[in-house]
């Protein structure tokens, strides 16, 4: 077929292709592209403190927001929250999945328990931890004592973010466990057997077979967990309400939170949301570019 003929055929097929793509394009346009474009537009509008009288006045608002103390502090909180939750969540997920990967009697029970948090909503998980850490009635607060009793881990500026992170790690553990378990089950058994015959002990097999072969799985889980950490809202809203003293005001809480200082200012909220989108985009690209070179995707 000549190039001209191929080109003609492509044009001839275009209406049918568009018709078949139309439902997806409508849904994508209505629920992703339009809100995104609208957020970009809103983000450059300057509104009065009540959120009314919004006016377009150039795009400088994005730079102003980026430079603001509130954004930088919220970005710092969110970044630290991700640093706390992602590595620990991944490590725990790998550890539990490796433990539960043994072909032992009754292991199905533990697999169910370890993966159960995936069926637990953020609200339920947060409430559970709220009560566990409550300085008056919380069992964990009783065990830990000290600052956990007065003023309480969620009420202390130095520990609040850690406490929220623990809740988040717990809530995400089921997801990480399931993903890593699936990854483990795709590793061919003969790689372990070969290493075993060659004399590799448990740690050598883990570091030379399990971890490298889990590369794609861990990259996926890492990107998802980082994205979730940056988008976490429920934990902050229910456990600390962004406090004490802004120590748990994440970017999402700055956008939506009841106690946020930009509450009601849709222009500023949209600007922060767009910047959060940009931050996540850059982070995901960095993660994928940086880690992918060391990740092996099979033969």
């Amino acid at each position, binding site marked *: 077929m000549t190039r001209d003929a191929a080109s003609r055929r492509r044009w001839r097929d275009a209406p049918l292709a568009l018709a078949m793509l139309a439902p997806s394009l409508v849904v994508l346009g209505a629920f992703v592209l339009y809100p995104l474009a609208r957020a970009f537009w809103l983000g450059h509008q300057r509104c009065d403190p009540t959120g009314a009288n919004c006016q377009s006045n150039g795009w400088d608002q994005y730079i102003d927001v980026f430079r603001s103390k509130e954004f930088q502090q919220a970005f710092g909180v969110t970044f630290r929250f991700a640093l706390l939750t992602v590595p620990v969540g991944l490590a725990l997920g790998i550890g539990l999945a490796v433990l539960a990967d043994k072909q032992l009697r009754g292991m199905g029970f533990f697999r169910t328990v370890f993966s159960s948090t995936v069926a637990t909503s953020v609200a339920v998980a947060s409430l559970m931890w709220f009560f566990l850490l409550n300085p008056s009635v919380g069992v964990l607060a009783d065990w830990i004592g000290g600052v956990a009793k007065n003023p309480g881990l969620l009420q202390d500026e130095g520990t609040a973010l850690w406490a929220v992170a623990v809740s988040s790690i717990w809530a995400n553990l089921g997801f990480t466990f399931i993903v890593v378990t699936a990854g483990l089950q795709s590793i*061919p058994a003969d*790689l372990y057997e*070969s*290493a075993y015959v*060659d004399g*590799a002990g448990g740690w*050598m097999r883990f570091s030379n077979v399990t971890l490298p*072969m889990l590369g794609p799985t861990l990259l996926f889980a890492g990107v998802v967990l980082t994205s979730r950490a940056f988008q976490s809202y429920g934990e902050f809203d229910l456990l600390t309400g962004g406090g004490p003293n802004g120590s748990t005001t994440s970017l999402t809480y700055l956008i939506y939170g009841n106690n946020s200082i930009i509450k009601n200012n849709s222009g500023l909220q949209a600007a922060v949301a767009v910047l959060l989108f940009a931050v996540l985009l850059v982070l995901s690209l960095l993660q994928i570019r940086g880690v992918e070179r060391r990740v*092996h995707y*099979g033969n």
Partner: protein
Amino acid sequence: MSYCAAVAAVRLSSLTKVFDGVAAVDDVSLDIADHDFMILLGPSGCGKSTLLRMIAGLEDPTSGDVAIGDVRVNDIEPKQRDVAMVFQSYALYPHKTVQANIEFPLKVRGVSKTERAEQARQAAATLGLTEYLDRKPGQLSGGQRQRVALARAIVRRPAVFCMDEPLSNLDAKLRGETRAELVALHARLASTFVYVTHDQVEAMTMGTHVAVMSRGRLEQVGTPQEVYARPASVFVAQFIGTPPMNVLPVGVVIDRPVLVGIRPEHLELDPTSQVRTTVTLVEHLGHETLVHARVGETPVVVRLDAIEDAPSVGDDVGLSFPERHLHLFDPATSRRVDA
């Protein structure tokens, strides 16, 4: 460089392995001499791989003993058995380079970085892999991967090589070439090879000895020539040889209560014979012609040289059974009776 192995005869004594009440290996005793190239041959599910895995230490015997040299190794980890294993899938680490794959057994043993790099290079040179050392397994062909698996096995100079159908993933041409390479490697390494296959061609062309297995039990052990020329049972007679040996029921060929076996190349078309049959199929294979017919209810095959005149389908032919080529088997036990 030579890879001289320690003296490594392998002795299996009454070895049994039971999985969920089913004996995968059933009371197998086998002596594999030092420097032997022993082929464990049998159909899928006959227990040959399980037997090999017990030698390598990947399965614990339910009963019986495995000894390497003079040492009973039942309770000894694979690492201490001085055994290397080559898997059907090669089991190469896909994320490591060829060099790192070959070095791995030495790394596990704490050999210094420079020493193991040197030994890996030598093993790679032995198998013609020098130019591929920096590649990953995914960038190699099947034959090259197979050689990397071999290089990883020879690099630590084990006393015994266990190979589990290492050629089965190769195409026919490469398989033929690699068979010859393995025989040469065995001669050069002077190690004991235990090689599992279901392919009788591999068994006949590579092994110094062949152990034929069926349903977890050992049917016969001998040189390839012995198991072909004097099969110990109907199973061996029909498993080795293509087409398989013709085995005729009692009373058809001779007047004794025995099953009579005869290889297709020994069965003759004889116009004067009283055993008459009708040709049902003629296969011209170029170098030979296979004539199919039936004696009573039993299908038989006659192999003719290509230059011989072949009958046509539907022709009435006579078959003669030269006595010196007959194999007699007990109808009750299927074991050879003229031994």
